[in-house]
């Protein structure tokens, strides 16, 4: 219903903009260009349709497109559209009335195909021996009631933007923006139960997600100072129904006994429980921006404060951010760009109240309650400076240096001491030895101290050192946390990158480019295990435009990437 309303709003705004244009005072010499396109795409994806054709048509029928551009004095109208089928179409319209009113409306829809996981890998029963001759207790099974079903959703996006100036107040501009994203269709949701045995069920779940974004603001120019303010409200609603599943009674998988023992380790047993929790989030943000000329230079600053609220769980996520950027021509040939940013995010902690583990059982009753401190809660700071030196038309050089730091208040990873520091340096040289030929050489190095790492460490020692909890005879799975060590990460601590590019423009009709990008990332914190991430990207391009009607492009680019990352291996049971 809301989808239809939003489409109606977009169409009404478009009609309004057309009417406004029709009544405008046009100049004497209008210019109109138009284009109509009728054609079809062919996609031969029969065997791999579901894997490859995530967005592609994969079916073939005629499609239509049209474009109209009209200028009349200081008034402009651009309209374009594409129709393939009701799920795939686009419409864009923008209109400008002198310098007083500007309206943009766009509507775009497409279909995104989602996977149907047949789960054929989820079938096994444990063997009592290592050669698989005698069946044991543990099992993995699955149930996909709709193996031939196709899943996907239609995504519709509507954008409306209005800008207006008030006669007599030319320094003031008012803005109003609206954006809606509507997604509806079906997706496959997998739901797992793992007691008494591991079983995964596929459920056909409705997709019904709506995002509405409304922003209003004003820009004010007062001499060398420009000020801008925007208030934005974003609302997200997942209107999918709540789906439930009957979770197996926790019991011994073969004989059905020990129900109390197994059930005492689960939140629910033999019960119907929801498998999804549709999210509802409201966000309100205020954005302030200011720009001022400082002599020949310019300073731009912005500040943002926002609060996102998970309405279902009453969780608040507060963000305060600010950044400032200074651009200043230091000397006749030297420009400095300095910038700094500060970002503070605070997410509410949540107390997770759980029943005691193995309550009422011998050696049980351990308390597993905990406070969930959010990893979102952090302070992110960054500062950088770039010096640009223009020696002549033929030679330019720039040097960028920067430092960034993330301080994570509540991140429960002790090894990083809650801080990640990054330093970067990027010199760049541009040469134009002769008219038409441009060469660029860029090198960058980035050093990171304590990159992001998993909070619960990387590897496990042997489990032989573990002893059962008091009153228990077995070592339990969760005790493995005591064995974890390795405050390392699969992200690089040192990264070098080189980018070389040559462009030759023989004339306005012939352009040739060639270049190569290469990078290598290593982790020096990890001396025993080799970590490398390498990329090599040669590229080549040729553009031929013999006249204003014809252009021929030939592009070639190859990406070679390899990474020998870390693999975390369990030592206890594997």
């Amino acid at each position: 219903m809301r989808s239809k309303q939003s489409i109606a709003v977009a169409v009404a705004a478009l009609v309004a903009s057309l009417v406004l244009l029709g009544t405008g005072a046009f100049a004497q010499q209008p210019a109109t260009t138009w284009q109509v396109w009728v054609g079809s795409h062919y996609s031969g994806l029969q065997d791999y349709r579901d894997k490859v054709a995530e967005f592609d048509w994969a079916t073939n029928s005629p499609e239509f497109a049209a474009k109209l551009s009209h200028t009349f004095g200081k008034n402009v109208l651009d309209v374009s559209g594409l129709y393939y089928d009701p799920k795939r179409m686009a419409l864009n319209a923008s209109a400008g009335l002198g310098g007083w009113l500007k309206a943009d409306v766009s509507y775009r829809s497409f279909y995104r195909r989602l996977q149907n996981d047949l789960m054929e890998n989820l079938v096994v029963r444990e063997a009592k021996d290592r050669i698989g001759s005698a069946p044991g207790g543990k099992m993995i099974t699955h149930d996909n009631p709709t193996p031939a079903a196709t899943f996907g959703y239609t995504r519709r996006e509507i954008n409306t933007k209005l800008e207006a100036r008030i006669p007599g107040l030319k320094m003031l501009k008012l803005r109003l923006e609206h954006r809606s994203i509507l997604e509806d269709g079906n997706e496959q949701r997998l739901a797992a139960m793992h007691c008494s045995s591991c079983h995964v069920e596929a459920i056909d779940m409705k997709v019904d997600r709506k995002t509405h974004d409304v922003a209003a603001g004003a820009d004010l120019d007062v001499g060398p100072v420009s000020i801008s303010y925007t208030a934005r409200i974003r609302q997200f609603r997942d209107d999918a129904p709540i789906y439930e599943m009957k979770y197996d009674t926790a019991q011994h998988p073969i004989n059905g006994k020990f129900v109390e023992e197994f059930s005492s380790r689960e939140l629910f047993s033999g019960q119907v429980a929801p498998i999804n929790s549709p999210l509802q989030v409201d966000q309100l943000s205020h954005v302030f921006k200011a720009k001022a000329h400082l002599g020949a230079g310019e300073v731009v600053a912005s500040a943002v404060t926002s609060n996102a609220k998970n309405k279902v769980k009453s969780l608040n996520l507060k963000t305060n951010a600010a950044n400032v950027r200074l651009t200043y021509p230091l000397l006749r040939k030297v420009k400095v760009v300095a910038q700094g940013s500060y970002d503070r995010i605070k997410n509410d902690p949540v107390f997770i109240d759980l029943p005691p583990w193995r309550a009422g059982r011998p050696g049980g009753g351990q308390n597993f309650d905990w406070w969930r401190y959010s990893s979102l809660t952090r302070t992110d700071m960054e500062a950088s400076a770039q010096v640009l030196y223009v020696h002549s038309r033929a030679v330019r050089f720039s040097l960028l240096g920067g430092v960034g730091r993330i301080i994570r208040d509540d991140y429960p990873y002790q090894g990083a001491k809650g801080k990640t520091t990054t330093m970067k340096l990027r010199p760049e040289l541009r040469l134009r030895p002769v008219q038409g030929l441009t060469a660029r050489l860029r090198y960058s190095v980035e050093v990171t101290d304590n990159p992001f790492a998993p909070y619960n460490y990387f590897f496990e020692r042997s489990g032989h050192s573990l002893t059962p909890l008091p009153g228990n005879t077995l070592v339990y799975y969760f005790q493995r946390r005591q064995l974890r060590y390795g405050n390392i990460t699969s992200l690089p601590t040192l990264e070098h990158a080189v980018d070389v590019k040559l462009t030759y423009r023989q004339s306005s009709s012939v352009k040739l480019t060639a270049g190569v990008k290469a990078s290598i990332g290593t982790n020096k914190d990890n001396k025993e295990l080799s970590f490398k991430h390498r990329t090599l990207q040669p590229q080549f391009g040729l553009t031929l435009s013999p006249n204003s009607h014809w252009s021929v492009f030939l592009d070639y680019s190859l990406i070679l990437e390899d990474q020998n990352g870390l693999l975390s291996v369990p030592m206890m049971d594997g």
Partner: protein
Amino acid sequence: MRYKLPFLRRACLAFLVLLFFAVPAGFRTADAAKKAEKVGDQTCLTCHEDVGKSFAHSVHAQKTTTKGYTCEACHGPGSVHAESMDPADIYNPATDYNPVAPNPCLTCHNGPQFTSATASAHHELADGCSDCHQVHSTEPKLLKKQGSELCVDCHKDIGAKFSLTSHHPVKEGLMSCTSCHAVHGGDNKFTHTDNSRELCISCHTDKAGPFVFEHEPVNEDCGICHDPHGTVANNLLKQTEPFLCMSCHPVHFHTGIAGYIGDFKNPLHPERGGKSTLDGFKSGMLTKCTQCHTQIHGSDLPSESISSRGRSLTR
């Protein structure tokens, strides 16, 4: 990690010394423009008739406030050039662009979208605005090419990624580079928002949270697991499952269990069963972690087992 600060200091010092002794070369065209006087459009069109024809239909021609001197509004006074006919005697934004000097285009185009333009990497490009815009043309936004084709012309490596199996629908024409990138200079890395997570969740709102049960890298940076331009693995994942997951998490401890060879039925649920193999637990536990841990971006519901403290992201 020790930083080599002494080296950096030396490098910066050397650079400053280089600047100090730099030979002033100046911009000949700027000097020439100072001496010249305006001659009017008719004089320009005497030689540049072809340019004038296409320019007459462009937005710039329609919107100009300098009637009769439209050419010189951007190119500066042209009397010296008109006399000498030397291209060096007049300012040409396409070849004489100087990123240190004030950008003549930004004199008029000074709206909010250009607030950081003078600090952006695009601003330093060889020919500045002219690298992407053809001022005399009649194309929308005066772009040399439309849509992502223009961006890919320089960013070929990114263009190639859009041809990988999993990609944002840019080559299908359903998105464009400007859906994410503010090409005139954004708050951060040319994006529309000040951090990459905020950018992603402006469309993928269902992944934003805040959730009760979190997955830490989701909060840190979507780029830890995803490459937004395109990947071989599904869902824009940088590696396929389970290897991506195993970059941080240990393998599930059931992986090492040997499987029974033969058909089986679950004694308590006879409708469940199938063909078991010796490596069945490996294929079950080492194929796709998200078959069970479906709520990988976060959830408000606790998972089934108490010992995992509800944070297994299975429901």
